[in-house]
């Protein structure tokens, strides 16, 4: 009865367009729900390479790092891939689809999982190069796409989805990785949920919400992160990245993700590292290849040449050179370049990479360890205004972030001036020096955090590293004490030592 009532109202009048309208709306709505397939983008420098070189670089990136749907990374990079590590116990080349492995305890069903062979990277590279030289198919490439077809836990017998090539490297003791990029998948899922809308699919800081932001979200692809506990030339440590995600960055749009589980945080950090490594690899290849073989270099060589025959000659010669480079030198450059990058990341997680003060913090109100005739804050002020540190040139005499450098045209690193006066970061975004009176400390407000900002600098910005060079650790503590006193300057007079002669010398007169 009810149905008839409904039916009568909606369908009895054929002239009534509403059901069709409804249908159209529904379909339009469904079209809007279509899953967007996102992919990593390549940076502009890669597009500037000559087509043959561009293809080479892109292929390297895809084979090393995959796509957001299939993230992968060479095993020598220090990223937790979440693999299940297996070890070959025996391999009989007569039976190329079988491997005996050492018994493993795992709750994960190995069947159907991808299998990767963890050869020594240099050995693996040699095999590939040899194959190229002899113009034979690369046996390493034949290992791609091997999955586990069956596993017998009793005997440790792995049956593979396809036959193994004849390779000396496959021998007892060699480690295998089943399900090799499991954690990158998980990380990608979380990154997509929490980070991607600002930091972008490729970690290039250009997600849809990024345009509303000042400062801009970090572009990871340079591998440069501002606030690190590691030395001025070191990469960021895993702990630093996690610290930023947990604490957020006050004064910017980066919020705290403290309530995420520890496991999720680690997965996100892992994936961010992965994106940074991918971006850095691309940057490294752009430099190595682009130095000689980008479109601009060829255009420069052809400049002023009008004879078509000569143009043809130059172009042919150029391409010959390039093809030779791509065939002979490129594989080596790409491989060892990535190996070097991986090493830099490994070193950043080393205990010795972390910067600590060699002396404890000086009491801000007590005598300075660098100049005992003054309080630490007083001496910090002198250093702040003085020639060695030159803090005031950017941060201003009053610490308001309005030093004279903010009104000058600055030089670009590759030559030429910026169009806007003031400082810029390595991503060429205009950058204001921190207003030190604002009481906001982006990289953390513990004295050790501020000490490290001064000691190692802020990477990717004009804030230089003072540690071990222009300032001693004692002097840095004085500057830290003065800087942390600055927001309270209006309510607290500058502390002086009780002795009359000590407080007599006004700060300015001590500056040479």
């Amino acid at each position, binding site marked *: 009865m009810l149905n008839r009532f409904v039916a009568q109202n909606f369908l009895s009048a054929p002239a009534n367009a509403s059901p069709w309208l409804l249908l159209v709306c529904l379909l339009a709505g469904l079209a809007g729900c279509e899953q967007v397939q996102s992919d990593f983008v390549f940076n502009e420098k890669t597009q500037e390479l000559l087509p043959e070189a561009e293809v080479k670089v892109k292929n390297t990136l895809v084979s090393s790092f995959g796509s957001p749907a299939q993230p992968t990374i060479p095993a020598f990079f220090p990223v937790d891939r979440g693999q299940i590590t297996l070890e070959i116990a025996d391999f009989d080349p007569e039976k190329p689809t079988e491997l005996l492995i050492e018994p493993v305890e795992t709750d994960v069903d190995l069947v159907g999982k991808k299998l990767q062979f963890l050869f020594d990277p240099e050995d693996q590279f040699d095999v590939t190069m040899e194959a190229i030289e002899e113009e034979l198919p690369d046996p390493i490439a034949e290992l791609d796409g091997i999955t586990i077809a069956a596993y017998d836990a009793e005997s440790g017998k792995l049956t593979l989805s396809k036959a193994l090539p004849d390779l000396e490297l496959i021998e007892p003791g060699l480690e295998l990785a089943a399900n090799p990029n499991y954690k990158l998948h998980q990380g990608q899922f979380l990154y997509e949920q929490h980070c991607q809308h600002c930091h972008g699919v490729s970690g290039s800081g250009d997600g849809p*919400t990024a345009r509303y932001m000042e400062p801009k979200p970090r572009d990871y692809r340079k591998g440069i992160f501002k606030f690190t506990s590691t030395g001025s030339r070191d990469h960021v440590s895993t702990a630093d990245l996690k610290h930023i995600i947990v604490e957020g960055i006050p004064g910017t749009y980066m919020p705290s993700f403290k309530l995420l589980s520890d496991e999720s945080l680690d997965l996100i950090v892992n994936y961010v590292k992965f994106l940074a490594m991918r971006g850095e690899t691309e940057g490294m290849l752009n430099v190595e290849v682009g130095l000689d073989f980008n479109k601009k270099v060829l255009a420069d060589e052809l400049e002023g040449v009008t004879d078509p025959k000569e143009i043809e000659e130059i172009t042919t010669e150029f391409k010959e050179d390039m093809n030779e480079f791509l065939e002979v030198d490129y594989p080596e450059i790409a491989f060892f370049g990535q190996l070097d990058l991986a090493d830099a990341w490994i070193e950043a997680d080393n205990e010795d990479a972390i910067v600590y003060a060699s002396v404890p913090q000086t009491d801000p109100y007590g005598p300075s360890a660098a100049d005992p005739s003054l309080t630490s804050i007083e001496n910090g002020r002198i250093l702040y205004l003085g020639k060695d540190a030159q803090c005031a040139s950017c941060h201003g005499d009053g610490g308001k972030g309005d030093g004279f450098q903010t009104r000058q045209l600055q030089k670009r690193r590759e030559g030429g001036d910026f169009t806007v006066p003031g400082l810029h970061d390595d991503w060429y975004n205009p950058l204001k020096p921190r207003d030190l009176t604002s009481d906001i400390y982006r990289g953390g407000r*513990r004295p050790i955090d501020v000490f490290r900002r001064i000691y190692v600098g802020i990477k990717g910005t004009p804030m230089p590293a003072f540690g071990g060079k222009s300032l001693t650790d004692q002097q840095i503590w004085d500057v830290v004490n003065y800087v942390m006193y600055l927001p*309270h300057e209006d309510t607290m007079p500058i502390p002086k030592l009780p002795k009359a002669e000590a407080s007599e010398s006004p700060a300015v007169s001590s500056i040479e």
Partner: protein
Amino acid sequence: MKRLWWIFFLMIWPVLALVVCAMTPGLKWGFPGDGLSDSTIGVEIDHLFYVILIICTVVFIGTQVAMGYVLWTASSRPADRRAWYSHGNHKLEMIWTVIPGIILLFLALYQTRTWAEFRMNSAYPEAAKTNIIAEVNARQFEWRMRYPAPGKTLERKPQIDDMYQVNELHVPAGTPVTIQLRTQDVQHSFFLPTMRIKQDAVPGMIIPVWFEAKEPGEYPLVCAELCGWGHYKMGAIVIAHPPAEYEAYMKSLHEEQFEDGYIE
């Protein structure tokens, strides 16, 4: 066909309503957790909720029965009988205006004490007036807390020895505490769902909010004012400590905050 409406109003709709009502106590009336308030004032607020719920139930059942009666009797009347129009009937209008009026007036008076206790500084519990433990700064899209150094009182202007924390608010349990609520950008709302505490953070204003966690534990703090695209990220946690542990925790926080990282 006429009876169709009768079936709809007296059968389907009330049956559905009854089923939902029968289920809701099991769902703790939609309250989070065990359905009981985790703060003292929340117990009073819950009580007001139940009073209103009972009044609404009585009114709902009464009006539904009356409507069902009218539909049932009217549907069996001959179609040619003249209808009686009640519109403009002074007596009826009086009845259904005055009765709800009385109910609303009763509610207004009945809740005054709870309202004053939560909103009016003079009606605060004594401890809430002195126990001002932190400044809570809402910003897109997180909560930043500022505590005075142990043994000091919270100043309006940040002090050199203040302590800071993000998305974590530590309070002592079993005693009323007050936070000063501010926002650094747009409007947000400080919402402790399990404590039934909700207060908007308004730009340019410092609004005191007091609450008492009955038991030590962890309680959610969320933003209850759509404040931008990242509104959903604005979750934090209130951690209530036993009083003695609270003191110790604040001391350790202070040490951590002024860590110089020196290793001998």
